């Protein structure tokens, strides 16, 4: 049995699907595409017809939502709770005002020299009201949700589980830098190169590690950057300031029991700053943190660089 893999553009990034048996690749791809389409329809901030866009435009009123959006918001709130608010879905408005107001492909093309960024306070995740029984969500007036931090990771986890349940093959699903694996892994595990940018070539620089279960996610400030006048901004917002975070780390990669957990921890690590290595280590999360100067800190059982390189 030989493995199979395929990559496709999705959710403003690249989706990669790997299965242990290439004969089931087409079926697995079909399941993945269905999951991606569903998450895009529910959670995209840039599609005017998405449920999230409608929820954001109805801020101040309770809105009935689908089970999928409800789950995505619940996961985002859980991320905020688990990270003490470092990963907060209510950063949507300030992110939009700062210039990330359309798909990143369009943001990248804009002449940023003439663009004037603005920022807004982050209302805070505690102001999101969720009625699970009636499946409604209410966000306060002036608040906009951004689920970019966790929705992709959730989609990766769900797609991987679905493929295993339906097909039985071991599977890896990568959405940008967020990777979920499920089922029986290859004999040597799933080999993953870790870099600053998920779009880096497979044979580029960076250590290669293998995982056998759960997820691995990377968050960084080297990607999704745009110009606003004389300054350059990036997409990871510090909820405490409402502005792109100033952090000593350019990339934080974390392995965890699921892709969502890995994503929460890696994003929180970037936002937390200097304390991140100790915070991750205390929670026994294997992590690799790359400082702005390129030096690396490994904690929680992440293989040391010499062994991994």
């Amino acid at each position, binding site marked *: 049995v030989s493995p199979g893999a395929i990559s496709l553009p999705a959710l403003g990034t690249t989706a990669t699907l790997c299965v242990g048996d290439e004969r089931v690749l087409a079926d697995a791809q079909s399941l993945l595409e269905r999951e991606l389409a569903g998450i895009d329809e529910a959670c995209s901030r840039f599609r005017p017809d998405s449920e999230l866009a409608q929820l954001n435009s109805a801020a101040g009123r309770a809105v009935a939502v689908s089970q999928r959006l409800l789950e995505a918001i619940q996961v985002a709130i859980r991320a905020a*709770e688990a990270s003490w608010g470092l990963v907060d879905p209510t950063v949507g408005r300030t992110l939009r005002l700062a210039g990330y107001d359309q798909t990143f492909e369009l943001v990248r093309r804009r002449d940023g020299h003439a663009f004037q960024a603005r920022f807004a306070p982050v209302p805070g995740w*505690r102001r999101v009201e969720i009625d*699970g029984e009636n499946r409604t969500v209410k966000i306060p007036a002036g608040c906009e949700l951004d689920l970019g931090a966790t929705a992709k990771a959730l989609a990766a986890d769900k797609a991987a589980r679905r493929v295993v349940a339906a097909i039985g093959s071991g599977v890896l699903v990568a959405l940008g830098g967020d990777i979920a694996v499920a089922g029986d892994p290859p004999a040597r595990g799933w080999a993953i190169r870790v870099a600053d940018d998920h779009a880096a070539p*497979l044979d580029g620089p960076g250590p290669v590690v293998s995982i056998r279960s759960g997820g*691995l996610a990377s968050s960084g400030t080297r990607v999704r950057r745009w110009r606003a006048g004389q300054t350059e901004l990036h997409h990871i917002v510090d909820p405490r300031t409402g502005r792109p975070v100033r952090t000593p780390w350019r990339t934080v990669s974390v392995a965890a029991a699921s892709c969502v957990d890995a994503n929460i921890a890696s994003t929180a690590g970037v936002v937390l700053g200097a304390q991140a290595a100790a915070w991750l280590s205390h929670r026994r999360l294997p992590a690799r943190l790359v400082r702005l100067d390129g030096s690396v800190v490994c904690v929680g059982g992440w293989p040391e660089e010499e062994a991994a390189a």
Partner: protein
Amino acid sequence: VSDERDLRARLSLRDKGLRRLKALTGLLVVAMTALAGIFVAIAAAATPGRKLIRVQPRTTAARVKPGASRTRSTSVPPPALPALGSQAASPPPAAPAQPPAAAPPAAPPVVVSGGS
């Protein structure tokens, strides 16, 4: 003459009493000012301008479980830094069953994890 002396003595006694009363009032004013200063200092020390508010998420968090009754947030405190040993209301991100291992050179990577 005797009445006049008596009157002068009483006036002198009255003036002496008034002076004592004036001195006592001055003393009281000084004491009150000092006490007020002390209380202001105590209050300032108890409530500094940049006080860190520790949030108790369990009591203010939006409930997110399906089927749970509706709850409403009560405040919008700024996010507090997570302390190393602190526990959030939700379980923290869970560690994997096995940490990543250095991949053997013979195992080429299938995907790149990086910022996206």
